[in-house]
């Protein structure tokens, strides 16, 4: 065995920068991701439809969470306004795909990629409009301004009833029609199975794009801006420019997430895009792990599963009521779990679920030694 092959078979030894920054920088990662994708693709054949619906929602939320992670985790700009961009995406896509003769605004473009892109682009446009203000601010000032964006957004959504159907009424979401087949209707496969596969493919595409973005020159510039924007400026990285890019890309992801989020429910209203949704996205990013793409996906899955987890809890903790007028009820349990999970992860595992996975992996990799 030559020296070269010995060296290359050693873990965590990279013989060049290109290798270290590679998409799959170890063979184990390559095999692991392939296996995971294969299992995910086969899952609809094995799992009941109600679980598929949760997983599907989780995958759509993951697209949005990746977007927030790009701006918050990678570029270090705290945004509490993600719900606004999700809302813009949801309304833009449903308007583009909507029935021109209908009660609410519609342009009748039913071609699916067109309305998904329209949702993303509309949100990205809003991101570009907001970014000049956001790039002037830093840290907590930015957090408060983006929080204000959510309130103004909710006002606009409620007031613009031609587009949104008005408060308490809402409008139809876009219909996912692929090759003449309406994915929200059961055919040879159930609607949940078809939507799951659609969301899986889209999540893979967007996760891969994001992963590639963050390991490119742009991603390194994001990290420089996050770690110290003045220092980044001194080194020739223009902070305003990269904050603008981060906001735009993040809003695009939020818009895509919004365009798909209500496809399964077919209906949504303006009250959905409140502060709670923003906090849920922040929770996904932090519980999953800031500045990791896989962490965002894990976090989104956990948050998507929380309603189900809290309703399952009622079987074990019988004092929790399922009726919304009694206390404590499942909705309160769910809300308390969001809060408690955020606090607990930040106190005990700041790197989130990704950090937990990292610990487990390190333990087995160096087994039986502790390091």
């Amino acid at each position, binding site marked *: 065995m030559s020296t070269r092959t010995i060296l290359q078979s050693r873990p965590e030894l990279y013989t060049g920068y290109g290798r270290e920054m590679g998409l799959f920088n170890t063979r184990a990662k390559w095999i692991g991701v392939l296996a995971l994708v294969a299992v995910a693709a086969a899952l609809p054949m094995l799992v009941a439809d109600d679980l598929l619906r949760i997983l599907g929602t989780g995958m759509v939320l993951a697209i949005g969470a990746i977007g927030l992670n790009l701006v918050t985790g990678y570029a270090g700009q*705290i945004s509490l306004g993600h719900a606004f961009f999700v809302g813009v995406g949801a309304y833009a896509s449903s308007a583009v795909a909507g029935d021109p003769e209908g009660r609410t605004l519609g342009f009748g473009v039913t071609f699916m990629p067109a309305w998904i892109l329209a949702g993303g682009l509309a949100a990205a446009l809003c991101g570009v409009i907001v970014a000049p*203000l956001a790039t002037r601010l830093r840290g907590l000032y930015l957090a*408060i301004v983006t929080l204000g964006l959510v309130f103004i957004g909710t006002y606009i959504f409620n007031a613009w009833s031609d587009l949104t159907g008005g408060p308490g009424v809402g409008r139809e979401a876009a219909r996912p029609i692929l090759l003449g087949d309406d994915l929200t209707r059961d055919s040879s496969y159930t609607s949940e199975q078809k939507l799951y596969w659609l969301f899986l493919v889209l999540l893979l595409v967007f996760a891969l794009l994001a992963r590639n973005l963050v390991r490119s020159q742009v991603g390194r510039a994001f990290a420089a801006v996050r770690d110290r924007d003045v220092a980044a400026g*001194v080194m020739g990285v223009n902070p305003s420019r990269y904050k603008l890019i981060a906001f735009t890309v993040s809003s695009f992801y939020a818009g895509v997430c919004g365009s798909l989020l209500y496809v399964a429910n077919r209906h949504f209203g303006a009250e959905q895009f409140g502060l709670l949704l923003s906090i849920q996205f922040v929770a996904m990013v932090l519980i999953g792990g800031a500045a990791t793409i896989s962490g965002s996906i894990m976090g989104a899955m956990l948050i998507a599963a929380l309603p189900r987890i809290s309703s399952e809890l009622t079987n074990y903790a019988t004092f929790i009521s399922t009726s919304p007028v009694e206390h404590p009820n499942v909705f309160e349990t769910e809300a308390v779990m969001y*809060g408690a999970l955020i606090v607990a992860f930040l106190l005990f595992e*700041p790197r989130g679920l990704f950090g937990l996975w990292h610990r487990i992996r390190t333990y087995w990799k160096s087994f039986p030694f502790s390091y």
Partner: protein
Amino acid sequence: MSEFLTAVVVGLGSGSIYALVALGFVIIYKSMGVISFAQPAFLLSGAVLVSLLSPSIGFWGALAVGVVGIAVLALGVERVAIRPMVGKAVFVIAIITIGIDIVVRTVAGAFLGVNPRYVGDPWGLGSWTVGGVVIQHRHVAALATAAVVMLALFLFFRFTPIGLAMRAASLDQEAAMAQGVNVGTVFAVSWALAGGLAALAGVFAATGEPISNTLWIVALVALPVIILGGLDSLGGAVLGGFIIGIAQALVSTYHRDLFSGDVAFLPELTNNLGPVTPFIVMFLVLMVRPYGLFGTKEVERV
């Protein structure tokens, strides 16, 4: 004119509530450099606690017990969840306070129940009419309370040893520690003060009407106030509170005249713009002054 003055009185009343919450935000920010997003929860819990106590011990007793109770709650929260994080990134601590906010707010909201709850204040919706200007008792009471609290805070920071320690710690934490200031105590006192102020604001925000499940939003409206005044300026918080309160009341009052489509350059809006006015004012101010009206401009070194 009387319509205008009525709006100004309403604005002064709600402005003093915003000022109370904003003072809490600023006190915490000055001591640890963090915005506590847990203020909405303390505000709601204050109102709920007072509404639970006031039938048995009367409004004033309940107010005193409620404010002290929430101050103690805030003290406990600081001790359990915030103190271990001192020295970590500001953003992380801010997000922890969001988590605390959700937990505390949900638990407090669970006590509201189905039946309407009142804080049991003696003012209700009673009012005086002076030359066509309607002056509600509750707004006068809020303004008077805010004035007393501000005077007390001024005396506290000016003349007590702990107030001096807090001012020293906000200037330079390490230098203060070197002079024997217990920074832990400063954190604890600032959280207790902020919790008490939020509870007090919550009670006055809830006077006259049943406590709504969305009462806590009042505390988020105080965020534009501190942005307007500058995160680290106590005087700015008070002035910002009144500016935001009056702007909001004026927009609510004149919304129908301004946005009915009669004024050429303004769009027609059916929903009242009042609730979002503070955020719009905040955007406008930040476009001109990114650090608020009275905030300290950060000097960055590499």
